[in-house]
């Protein structure tokens, strides 16, 4: 309703391809980034930065990773956490075994490692479809978890398999402070979302959606199904791997396999179901929801007279609520919060006309 579109027209295809065709949206995005990069580090306290914003950003990135595979390429996966783990441990090992390797490089390489593993477990998708594929991704989930704990080499032979992350330095600047870790995360996430945006709008992105929507037709058009699916697994793996590395280094400060168990995979799946399958912004919405809702719930509980709801019950309630929410979304709005927002926006652009 506050859009003013008259006079915004394109004389070149390049202009038409912009992901934010409306001037108002472009300005909005710029403002948002300015706030995120300048204002937040300024005003945000340590709790908010390290307990809310960093996990929110990392989970958004992980959500994007899974969304590429499930939302865009239509391949269901329950192994997301495994690939995060691979990314985290690969990054850690690169840091400790290759001295002088810049952090960002080792994170990228960690992502690459995850991509390879992911593609490996994606191989069965060339023969099997639908939830048969769950077997492969669950196999990844359990096998990776097992291997990382079983072989001390991965955790540099530390007793517990739990290892603390090395100092975060970029170009000699130390980033161990919450602000530093926040900015590191934010930068990586923004960069990768930009790439992700290009990716899903590229030919490859369209091929993924084609395979998702109607694979026979895709094949008849001449889309190489095998290559397309494997690339989906690999790129999804890369994003998850980087997310895993950030989760371990920028958020927890420790690297441990148990942080990447099946429930983490479910959490990420829930993020994209709630946020929106096949949507970029949805990952942020879903992640925000997943991160903020428990905080909200515990705050509400603390308002009640003490001991009425203990922590355990709170967790159960949370579980029930999330479960119910998933079902609700699948029934009412399978395309998630992103779709709701988009629908509202479309109506606002047309208001007061209906169509």
């Amino acid at each position, binding site marked *: 309703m506050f859009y003013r579109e008259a006079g915004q027209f394109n004389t070149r295809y390049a202009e038409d391809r912009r992901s934010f065709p409306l001037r108002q949206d472009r300005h909005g995005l710029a403002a948002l980034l300015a706030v995120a990069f300048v204002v937040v580090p300024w005003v945000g306290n340590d709790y908010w930065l390290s307990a809310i914003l960093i996990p929110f950003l990392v989970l958004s990135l992980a959500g994007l990773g899974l969304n590429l595979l499930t939302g865009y390429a239509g391949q*269901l996966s329950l192994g997301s956490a495994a690939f995060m783990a691979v990314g985290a441990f690969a990054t850690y090992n690169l840091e400790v075994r290759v001295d002088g390797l810049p952090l960002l490089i080792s994170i990228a390489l960690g992502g690459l490692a995850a991509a390879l593993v992911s593609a490996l477990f994606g191989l*069965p998708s060339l*023969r*099997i479809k*639908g*939830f*048969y594929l*769950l*077997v*492969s991704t*669950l*196999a990844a989930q*359990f*096998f990776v978890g*097992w291997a990382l704990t*079983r*072989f001390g080499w991965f955790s540099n032979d530390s007793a517990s398999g739990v290892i603390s992350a090395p100092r975060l330095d970029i170009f000699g600047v130390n980033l161990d402070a919450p602000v530093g870790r926040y900015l590191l995360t934010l930068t990586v996430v923004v960069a990768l979302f930009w790439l992700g945006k290009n990716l899903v709008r590229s030919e490859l992105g369209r091929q993924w959606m084609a395979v998702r929507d109607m694979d*026979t037709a895709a094949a008849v058009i001449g889309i190489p199904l095998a290559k397309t699916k494997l690339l989906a697994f690999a790129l999804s793996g890369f994003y998850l791997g980087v997310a895993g590395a950030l989760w371990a280094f920028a958020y927890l400060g420790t690297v441990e396999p148990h942080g990447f168990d*099946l429930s983490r995979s*479910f959490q990420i*799946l829930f993020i994209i*179901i709630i946020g929106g399958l096949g949507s970029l912004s949805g990952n942020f919405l879903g992640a925000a929801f997943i991160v903020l809702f428990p905080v909200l719930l515990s705050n509400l509980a603390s308002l009640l007279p003490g001991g009425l709801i203990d922590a*355990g*019950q709170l967790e*159960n*309630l*949370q*579980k*029930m*609520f*999330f*479960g*119910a*929410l*998933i*079902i609700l979304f*699948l*029934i009412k709005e*399978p395309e998630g919060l992103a779709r709701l927002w988009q629908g509202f926006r479309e109506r606002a652009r047309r208001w007061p006309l209906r169509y």
Partner: protein
Amino acid sequence: MEFFFEVLIGGLLAGVMYDLVAIGFVLIYKASGVFNFAQGAMVLFSALTFVSLLERGVPFWLAFLISLAAMLLIAVAVERVVLRPLVNRSPITLFMATLGLSYVIEGFAQALWGAQVHGLDLGISDEPLELGGMLLSQFDIFAALTAASLVALLSWLFNKTRLGLALRAVADDPLAALAVGIRLQRVWVVVWTVAGFVGLVAGLLWGARLGVQFSLSLVVLKALPVLIIGGFTSISGAIVGGLIIGASEKLAEVYLGPIIGSGIENWFPYGLALLFLLVRPAGLFGERAIERV
């Protein structure tokens, strides 16, 4: 060699336990085309209800009936709240819905009965029994017999009763079934209840084994490879699959374990299932549909 057979038999008997869970899946999958991830949660819920009642001094049979009633309620609720609104949506969507469902049921079960571990004694001594020179757990044999009788009961239910007829009709072709006046909703409720019943039995046996606790709901993760190997649509397939998984993972643990490391039984079934998928995508007994364009 003796040892080998002991391991094998032990594995097979353990496989029976998987069967009990897997059968629940197959029932629901046949009737409503849903891969019911919540089956594990149902096992947990039924067992937890049963135990808690028992601990509150409710007699065995009554506790059993009440738990069964609870499963019926769940079945009705699921049909109303989940299946009906999601009718003719994609299998993936339905699967994710049951994922949510499992969260609801688990959360509910623990909110209701608490999260602590309950011991459960069905009064079957677990001391091994000498059979043909092999030591076998009485309990396992008991479990095997229960499973066998359960399967017998089910096959009677499906082959001899009108319900069974209706069920098979629905499984073959929902639309046709509707056309001849079978009420889909009712069939679903019944099937989910039966699955709940199977879940209850499985829950009791598993619970007596490991104690009734959250980890029960994780048996679902074992059932998946069982189904892949057996085929989603065939009970006998599920049974064979369960036995294969049970035996192979024990053998693997015993013979491969020392080589590549212990604790492989939590991923080995999946590796096996993958092999099966690549060789025979429809499973041993499942029929494969040819894709028509």
